[in-house]
């Protein structure tokens, strides 16, 4: 039996009160609910506070480079598509340094679950603006405030026809768990942008700030309607929708790679006798 205890890891090095704790809790709860064992899942992460998550639970782990979790996850899935692969990442990691991989992963529709701990700031490096930092926010390295437009991951997802795109809120853990489960059960790429208060560096987007604004997307909302989804994705300000914003039924990448039809590559035996025949082509 898989229990919460099964997923006990190192003591987190996060600040007390950090929104990441709730996300970690949700993650473990979902794994328990899905009765996945630690060795049956792989968590890939980059660098940042969020990216430390796999160390704070038990799972196969590839904690790689800042911004580069998605290509690693893609490689893992192509080598072993029987292995559920989850990426835990930050807004800087995924929308900043790793932006190009995000676009590619969405387009591939690789069956990877992407959980972005979006604290709208670079936490681990002490408070620089991230792509989701609001315009005008002042930081040590931006004394006149952020000029770049705030990145909207949901709008991007809809624009690139992302298989599954949702928003969660760390402090609404029950709701987050529902969304996470949906993502896990979705076949194909799934992005969850998780609003995550950073109690140390983000003095704007606090628990209160989010609590006042977030609302559960209406039950009659149809996430398969792309225009509606685009409209929903643009809601940000006084009201911030959480829940599944967009989804479609694009087949997952792995299903379309002919070589994977015979099962995971890693379990396909290598037949070295073929090479003799290939050599003949050069005669």
């Amino acid at each position: 039996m898989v229990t919460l205890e099964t997923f006990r890891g190192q003591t987190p090095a996060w600040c007390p009160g950090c929104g990441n704790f709730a996300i970690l809790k949700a993650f473990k709860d979902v794994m328990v609910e899905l009765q996945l064992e630690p060795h049956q899942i792989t968590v890939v992460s980059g660098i940042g506070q969020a990216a430390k998550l796999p160390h704070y639970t038990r799972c196969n782990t590839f904690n790689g480079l800042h911004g580069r979790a998605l290509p690693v996850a893609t490689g893992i899935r192509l080598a072993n598509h029987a292995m559920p692969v989850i990426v835990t990442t930050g807004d800087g990691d995924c929308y900043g340094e790793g932006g190009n991989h995000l676009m590619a992963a969405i387009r591939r529709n690789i069956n990877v679950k992407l959980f972005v701990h979006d604290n709208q700031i670079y936490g681990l490096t002490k408070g620089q603006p991230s792509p989701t930092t609001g315009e005008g926010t002042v930081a040590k390295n931006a004394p006149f405030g952020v000029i770049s437009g705030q990145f909207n991951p949901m709008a991007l997802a809809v624009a690139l026809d992302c298989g599954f795109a949702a928003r969660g809120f760390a402090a609404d853990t029950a709701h987050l768990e529902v969304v996470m489960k949906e993502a896990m059960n979705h076949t194909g790429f799934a992005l969850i942008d998780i609003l995550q208060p950073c109690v140390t560096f983000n003095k704007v987007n606090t628990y209160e700030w989010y609590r006042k604004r977030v609302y559960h997307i209406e039950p009659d909302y149809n996430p398969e309607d792309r225009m509606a989804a685009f409209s929903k994705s643009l809601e940000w300000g006084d009201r911030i929708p959480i829940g599944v914003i967009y989804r479609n039924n694009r087949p997952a990448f792995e299903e379309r790679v002919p070589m994977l039809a015979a099962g995971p590559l890693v379990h396909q035996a290598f037949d070295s006798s073929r090479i003799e025949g290939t050599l003949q082509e050069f005669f």
Partner: protein
Amino acid sequence: MDYSIKIGGEAGQGIQTIGDALCRVFVRSGYHVFSHQDYESRIRGGHNFYQIRLSNKPISASRNRIDIIVALDRESINRHEHELTTNGMIIHDASALRFNGEGAAFLDIPFEKLAFEHGGDKIMANTVATGAVLGMLGMESGHLMELIAGTFRHKGDDVVQANKIAANAGHQYAKQHCDRCAFAAAVNEVEKRMLIGGVESIALGALASGCRFYSAYPMTPSTGIMNFLASKENEYGVVVEQAEDEIAAINMALGASYAGVRAMTGTSGGGFALMVEGLSLAGMTETPVVIAMGQRPGPATGFPTRTEQGDLAFLISAGHGEFPRVIFAPGSPGEAFYLTNKAFDIAEKYQIPVFILFDTYLADSQWTFDSFDLGRVRNIDYRLRGDAFKKLPDYKRHAFTETGISPLAVPGDAGHVVVVDSDEHDEEGHIVEDAATRTRMVEKRLLMKRPLIKAEIAPPELYGDQEASVVLTGWGSTYGVMKEAVDELAKSTSIAMLHFSEVFPLPNLEPFDYAAFLRKAMLSICMEHNATGQFSRLLRAETGFEFDALIHRYDGRPFTVEELIGEINGHLGNI
């Protein structure tokens, strides 16, 4: 018998089709063949050529003097006429070129007209030209007919027939009209040989090693590896994925390798520059990966389609922090095959990145071989997987061991988790901050493995006079031309070639003390296709030995045998 043929023209005129067909026919006729190419970074126009040498003895480089020039444009005549041997011939289609070469060396063969009249479409002019060359050489057209049948099979019988007729027209025309043709390539005992180029050999080596995943971003001269592997995707169950950029390419390969399959990426200098952080990640996580790195002249975009050996020093130290790596620089397609296999073996055995460092010249040159010896191919699965993994009571990915090599397990195969981390970590793979663990991990990852890896490196090949007073040293793709130069010079000089194809780390001085051998020489020369002498500097850093003379070339072109001999002769005076 030793002839050189050059096909020159614009990009898009089909030089490569003619060249490839001729090479194949020569090989099937029992000759040894060497070919290399010269082309610009454009798709149409400009000036390109394809140079073929055929001989009844093994050959491994191009020569300066050309016996037959197939000129598909005026430029080819202007540029190459002076390279003609005394009895050499230039064939051209005077009406297509609007130029009729004067003098005995010129033969006007109306490729287009013959193609139209015999094949029915002037599009087959190149087939006519191919047939014509065979005619000039006094060779039969049988092998060409077979080749045409194979090449055009998928286009239907009509096309095959038309091309055969066109080829025969060229063949006949040349035979009848080339009075001066004294080429005697007609008869050879037919042995079965293979003809293969550098990129195909690397790809083949990967397939033979059980490579199952190749992620790359297109870049000359490495793209051929991706294309070849892609053509075998289904047959070998190898997944070839075009990555969004080179950063993704190496990180995908690392992911696939972590997940338990043999993985590779390929690129050129500029693309590799983007992989450097990923290389360091391979070092830290001890993830096996093979990287095919095709050099071309830099810096930056440089000469995208030409050759250089300018990235050795870069590869030796690429990546932040310190970690072991191996660099192989094959001297021929044959070596490329075997060394790619060795790369996969070493990469997995020691859990490190291993490079196949080639260059445009090797990528595009074709050599003949009797065959590749599959008995030399090593296929050991060093991974802990399946039941063997399941049975373990306990598992730590980075466990301290006597050798520094920790068990490399396949995640998912057992109840244990496999944890790797780009931060400094403990035996389990979790982040640490303490000094003691760090020190032990550096020892494990780097210092303990280093001597073991070095012991795997084969000594350089010593060819020629074992007591040579002149030693010509080189590495990588210059093997063939060095060997031929030494053969030639050996007639009058005590000379040897010392060739390194396993360049980093340098091999141990046991059993063969190459540094001592070099010190004994009256004249030691190091030749490299770069401007700063990267290999000679490496040798000095490792052994203290300094060469007497250096030959550097950095114009993007490979040496012909004569050119290299000329350079060497310039130094011989100094003994």
